[in-house]
């Protein structure tokens, strides 16, 4: 046996996985993989683009940063977290995927997600369909008036916007006000019949957040702050997500 210690050349270069570990509590457990494959066997994204969650993590562990950056798979993983749920070591592969999305320059990320995020940044509604607070108020008032008249049992039904001191701050996916306004009504009826004191916000009423999917942290933060500030400004006790 040689008495000389074999030393491998130079300092290990910082890789993508190291940077993600620094961002996460407990480093996202990214070094703890037992390679058991439970993640991949129960993942609906396994096989898409020749990839699966275990393979993706192994590639990151091996420092294959270029391949990771080039892969489209991070956009086919929905970050649903089932892999964490079944993982004996609770490895946060979805955070690895989220940060892999961010490796790509913003303007080169998928156009549909990019466009929806940009629309949400255009006005204080934070609607991924670009509806303004005025558009929203117009639709809500118009539909409410129509139904109060057509269905007299609901003549007292409310759908307030910016009601100070309401107990619940309710958000709404843009799809209803923008494309199928009649679908707003069943939710209002439920809230009315339950006797709930609720309000929408003129700012941050839209429930969807494509900036999170785009892995654009600044924009995600902006949207969350807009809606949270509005709920606090109105003094609402419960921020009620409708989805």
């Amino acid at each position, binding site marked *: 046996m040689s008495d000389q210690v074999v030393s491998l050349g130079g300092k290990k270069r910082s890789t993508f996985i190291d940077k993600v570990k620094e961002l996460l509590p407990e480093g996202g457990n990214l070094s703890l993989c037992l390679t058991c494959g439970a993640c991949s066997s*129960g993942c*609906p994204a396994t096989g*898409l*683009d020749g990839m699966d969650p275990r393979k993706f993590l192994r590639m990151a562990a091996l420092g294959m940063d270029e391949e990771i950056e080039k892969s*489209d798979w991070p*956009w*086919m*993983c*929905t*970050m*649903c*977290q*089932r892999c964490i*749920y*079944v993982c004996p070591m609770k490895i946060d592969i979805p955070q690895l995927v989220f940060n892999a999305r961010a490796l790509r320059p913003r303007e080169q990320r*998928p*156009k*549909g*997600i990019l466009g*929806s995020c940009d629309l949400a940044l255009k006005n204080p509604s934070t609607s991924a369909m670009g509806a303004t607070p005025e558009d929203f108020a117009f639709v809500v008032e118009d539909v409410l008036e129509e139904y109060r008249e*057509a*269905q007299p*049992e609901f003549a007292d039904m409310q759908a307030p916007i910016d009601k100070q001191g309401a107990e619940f*701050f*309710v958000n709404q996916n843009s799809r209803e006000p923008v494309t*199928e306004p*009649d*679908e707003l*009504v*069943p939710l209002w*009826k*439920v809230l009315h*019949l*339950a*006797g*709930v004191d609720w309000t929408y916000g003129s700012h941050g009423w839209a*429930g*969807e*957040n*494509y900036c*999170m*999917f*785009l892995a654009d*942290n600044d924009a*995600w*933060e902006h*949207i*969350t*702050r807009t*809606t*949270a500030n509005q709920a*606090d400004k109105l003094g*609402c*006790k*419960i*921020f*009620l*997500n*409708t*989805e």
Partner: protein
Amino acid sequence: MTFSVRAGLKKFNIDYNFEVKNIYEYYAKWIREGKLKVNSDWNKDLQIKFTVQDPCQIVRKSYGDPIAEDLRFVVKTMVGEENFIEMHPNRSNNYCCGGGGGFLQSGYKEQRLEFGKLKDQQIQKTGAAYCIAGCHNCHAQIHELSDHYGAGYHVVHLWTILCLAMGVLGPNEREYLGDDLKEVNVFHPETAM
């Protein structure tokens, strides 16, 4: 949506003075408190079968199995216990439908439908005529899966069936109901457009 708000508040250290909740929990609470008079009488003779999608963002990623139980309580009260059929696996162990994470807008349609094949098979196995999807991304994706793979099950929001079960669902609020339910328990049928 529930997850982006909860995770965003934490990730960006945002100060706030409210609690973040999901409406499933309140639907269940309001039914238990007798505020929402929901029953399944409308489905007693029809015996239309329903299954439910546990949205990843709300169940596994936010509130876990307790909210999945609330969701089941609401669904069983609305459609009748014998008309509710579980997918397997379910609750926190449920499969994602493939509509989340921006997949619907990412442009990878072929891969998205391939991803959703597992969900489609799960639903088909239940034999249910309706899949209740309270999340808009799930709703859109599962709707497309039903068309694409040809099973033809319908996809509905919770609020639609809640109002149907309370007898207050009007004729123009039935966009996602199939022909079997278009004429059932109609509130103010004279207002049909």
